[in-house]
């Protein structure tokens, strides 16, 4: 698991090394404060009543009996929150329609999925709160539900939102009410001409089930609405400012009246950006006059937060006999869930993003149906798309008799390649990952034994930039306190501190990173879009430059020379006749004019996209259809790797989630649209014994537009696994799977069908 950085001599001292994470001891000793550890005097416990129906009109809600139960302090429903009109609020990574957000937080006239929040209680303890929920009487008028995306697009489908209008590209034949929230069309070149030139054309259809991020820590929020009108929230959130803004907008408060403290977080993967229980905790606090903590259980997490879309995708690709792709056509329908969600957008961007297609067309639909509103999940939309496109790529390579990596190399996107959605790539590293994979011993290792096969697959994610702020205070002992607003999910305290340390010529240990509340640091967007090491790291770099500038001026004053005569290199300030280390000068700042604070707020442009190429060996049990992963190698362009262990961890984690998506994870629905497997027992994520050691191989193609060459690392590793595993299954037993998950019953059925066809 070496990186290029560790094998060649790097000019960096801190970047590329593996210091111990700053929050490590707190986490392994159990001292770190997670959302559920928050305790306040007089704390009440909130619980949410959720819809048992997938689709129903609410005739009435009667809370009188619940209010009378001893120990109950407040009961709320949508009557306690003013309605919002359909208006967009920016959330950094994406925007949100306030009317839909409001109705998702507490259902108003209709419930649109099983688990939709209807009312909530705050009580002296959780048990009383749960008993009180049973006393709330809701009169429902059940309606037909629809949970498969193609069914929801039919003319006679049950309509979820009466006044929904299709946004985006016009749909000429659509009339009347619809579930299609968005229609996207991208095109490039002339696909008819392209397909006419093709020697080989393959067209396939793909289905994938709804899957959840499966973070270990359930959502939890504590709110205190003080009599002076100030609202404080402690939350498990990927973005404290996003949480602040959504809550403030929903409750019609100025943002300055809301403080959000981000607690340590047990995973998010895109699922902890939208608010669910934060506004509920706030309203319960307002009504009861006490702090209120609302905690979800696991079933709530599955049924009532945002999973990622199930989808239907049709991909058609054409190639010349020499292996050059000439045209691609994709038709993609993604679940929006109960309200418009837009994961289809990145899905459409990603479907052909790995290839240089002269002619391409992509058409996509965001479709409302009776499932929870979908949310981001690690490269949202890209995994579904990669499964489809990569499988067709494999079939083309086979038909043309070209090695699958060679075929991809012939067509790989490079600097200058224009994607069907418009942008041309700057420097990217897909070719480098393909070449590295091809040369890796795994790719040429012999794989013996029956029913075993090897597959490869590629994936892409565009990554995000967005806004980040930090302040950095120089301490007299030569350390620097780094104040930041980015929730630390994957070791970003350290990866950001390392960029500050590198710039100042100090060690990572000499930086004291602190993730603080929304009143204590400048606006910072979510930890999401693989942006944090990139953008908040950039802010840390800029804050360090600011410190150097101020300290150089101090040194000049001290040495009685002009600031231009002071140079700074790797932690040493010097003039013609003097020199002081960073630490020495820091020791003198109080006598030379007082504290120095560096600061930076960036809106990071120059995002570097990331690609990965994975190799996997599987064994299929031909009698049961069960697939075992034997070996897994994940090659990824990571840009410049700041902290190799954390980059490797991101790759391994992403692959594990991709394996789960590929093999077993799915929301199982009954005929009435109710999820049947809302538990960790029956929603089958891989356990430690289901995956082998995943070997991450990091290729470094630095992002030329970032001060340290950083690209996002965290998302792309989830994209290739389903397609790579599908290819491996084909090479093991000669059967192509077109539906996720490739679970034992489905693989077994495919084997039986194949045998009876022969």
């Amino acid at each position, binding site marked *: 698991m070496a990186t290029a950085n560790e094998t060649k001599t790097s000019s960096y001292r801190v970047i590329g090394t593996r210091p111990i994470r700053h929050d490590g001891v707190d986490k392994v000793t159990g001292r770190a404060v997670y959302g559920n550890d928050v305790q306040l005097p007089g704390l009440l416990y909130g619980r949410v009543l959720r819809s048992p129906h997938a689709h129903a009109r609410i005739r009435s809600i009667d809370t009188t009996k619940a209010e009378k139960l001893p120990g109950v302090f407040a009961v709320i429903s949508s009557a306690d929150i003013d309605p919002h009109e359909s208006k967009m609020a920016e959330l950094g990574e994406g925007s949100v329609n306030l009317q839909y957000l409001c109705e998702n937080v507490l259902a108003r006239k209709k419930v649109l999925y099983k688990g939709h929040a209807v009312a909530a209680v705050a009580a002296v303890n959780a*048990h009383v709160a*749960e*008993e009180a929920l049973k006393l709330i009487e809701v009169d429902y008028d059940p309606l037909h539900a629809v949970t498969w995306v193609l069914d929801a697009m039919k003319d006679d489908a049950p309509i979820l939102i009466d006044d929904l209008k299709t946004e985006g590209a016009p749909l000429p034949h659509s009339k009347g009410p619809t579930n299609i929230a968005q229609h996207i069309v991208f095109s490039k070149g002339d696909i008819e001409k392209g397909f006419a030139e093709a020697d080989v054309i393959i067209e396939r259809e793909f289905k994938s089930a709804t899957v959840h991020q499966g973070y270990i820590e359930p959502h939890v929020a504590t709110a205190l609405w003080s009599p002076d009108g100030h609202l404080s929230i402690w939350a498990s959130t990927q973005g404290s400012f996003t949480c602040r803004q959504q809550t403030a907008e929903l409750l019609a408060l100025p943002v300055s009246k809301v403080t959000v403290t981000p607690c340590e977080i047990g995973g998010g993967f895109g699922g902890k950006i939208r608010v669910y229980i934060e506004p509920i905790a706030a309203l319960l606090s307002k009504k009861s006059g006490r702090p209120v903590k609302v905690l979800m259980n696991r079933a709530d997490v599955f049924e009532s937060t945002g999973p990622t879309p199930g989808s239907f995708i049709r991909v058609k690709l054409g190639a010349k006999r020499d292996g050059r792709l000439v045209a691609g056509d994709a038709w993609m329908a993604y679940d929006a869930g109960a309200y418009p969600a837009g994961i289809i957008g990145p899905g459409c961007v990603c479907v052909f993003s790995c290839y240089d297609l002269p002619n391409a067309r992509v058409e996509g639909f965001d479709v409302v149906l009776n499932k929870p509103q979908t949310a981001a999940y690690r490269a949202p939309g890209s995994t579904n798309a990669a499964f489809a496109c990569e499988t067709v790529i494999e079939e083309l390579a086979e038909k043309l008799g070209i090695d699958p990596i060679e075929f991809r190399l012939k067509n790989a996107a490079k600097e200058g390649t224009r994607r069907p959605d418009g942008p041309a790539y700057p420097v990217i590293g897909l070719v480098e990952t393909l070449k590295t994979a091809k040369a890796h011993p795994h790719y040429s290792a012999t794989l013996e034994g029956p029913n075993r096969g090897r597959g490869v697959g590629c994936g892409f994610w565009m990554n995000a930039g967005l806004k980040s702020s930090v302040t950095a205070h120089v301490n007299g002992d030569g350390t620097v306190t780094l104040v930041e607003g980015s929730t630390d999910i994957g070791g970003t305290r350290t990866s950001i501190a390392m960029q500050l340390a590198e710039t100042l010529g100090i060690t990572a240990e000499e930086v004291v990173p602190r993730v603080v509340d929304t009143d204590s640091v400048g606006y910072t967007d979510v930890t999401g879009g693989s942006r944090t090491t990139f953008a908040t790291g950039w802010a840390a770099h800029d804050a360090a430059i600011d410190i150097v500038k101020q300290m150089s001026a101090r040194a000049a004053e001290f040495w009685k020379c002009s600031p231009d005569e002071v140079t700074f290199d790797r932690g040493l300030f010097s003039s013609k006749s003097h020199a002081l280390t960073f630490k020495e000068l820091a020791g003198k700042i109080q006598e030379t004019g007082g504290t120095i604070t560096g600061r930076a707020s960036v809106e990071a442009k120059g995002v570097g996209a990331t690609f990965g190429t994975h190799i996997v060996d599987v064994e299929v049990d031909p*009698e*049961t259809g*069960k697939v075992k992963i034997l070996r897994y190698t994940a090659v990824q362009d990571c840009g410049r790797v700041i902290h190799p262990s954390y980059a490797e961890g991101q790759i391994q984690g992403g692959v594990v989630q991709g394996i789960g998506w590929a*093999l*077993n994870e799915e929301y*199982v629905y009954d005929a009435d649209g109710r999820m*049947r*497997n809302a538990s*960790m*027992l*029956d929603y*089958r994520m*891989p*356990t430690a*014994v*289901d995956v082998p050691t995943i070997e991450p191989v990091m290729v470094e193609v630095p992002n030329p537009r970032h001060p340290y060459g950083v690209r996002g690392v965290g998302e792309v590793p989830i994209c290739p696994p389903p397609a790579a595993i599908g290819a491996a299954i084909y090479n093991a037993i000669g059967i192509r799977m077109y539906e996720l998950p490739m*679970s*034992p*019953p489905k693989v*077994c*059925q495919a084997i*039986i069908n194949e045998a009876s066809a022969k």
Partner: protein
Amino acid sequence: MKEIAYAAPRTVADAVAALKQANGNGKAFAGGTDILVQLREGTRNADVLVDLKKIPEMTEIRQLPSGDWQIGAATPCHRIESTVPFAEGYPGIIDGVHIIGGWQIKGRASLGGNLCTSSPAADSIPALIAHHAVVKIVGPDGSREVPVSEFCTGPGKNVLKPAELVASFVIPAMLPNSSGCYLRFIPRSEMDIAVVGCGTTLTVEKDTIKQARIALGAVAPKPVLAEEAAAWLIGKPATIESFEKAGEIARKAATPISDMRGPAEYRTHLVGVLVKRSLMTSLRRLRGERVDVLHDKLV
């Protein structure tokens, strides 16, 4: 969840009395690994929990002079597994006991609890049936014996009458040239509920099958015997072909439902696969091979 009283009697008679007094609102409490979860999820209700783990008779495992084994109904799985002479003699029962949860669960979970929860997918029951196990039931009206094969009557239902307890299991001594096996199919490697379970015992003399017993889990409202398949095997050569044929016949005993754990047709298909593999493992074992079913290539 509301408040629940807790009783910790020292004798079976006191436990029965405590349940009787609770008048239908008491629940026996052995390892608690089912009942606590169910109470918390609201699928069961109780005013009193009657702890069985403080009753010596219910937590011991010993061999009787007849060679049979008696296992107290509240004996934790981990203790059963680590009782070496029992474990060596009954690898088929241990297959089931071993996979009930991880270490923490096995330190608490009992055979009595597994049986009395009466899940069609319970992992200990098929092998107990295949081994002709019998339970001793004690209640307000005295005690009686019931074969495990007749204990369950439907999902979550069994022959226990109000305030009755399963006190212990009796497992007959193994015949010579015999062994057993329990296999379950799950989509992952651990932490899952059987899509299909299959317990078998086999007696073979000079390569000819003398006795066979096949019990299936998760394919009917309760664990079931595949009697026709077992009968067909008698007198047949102990070969993979015979076991395959037995598997085909055993499918007829399966009347599964489709649910989130697997479609009905798939379960029926798996019956054939598991019966064949389980019998094959029993055969290898009775011939002296040690087979760890969790890591065996065949499984």
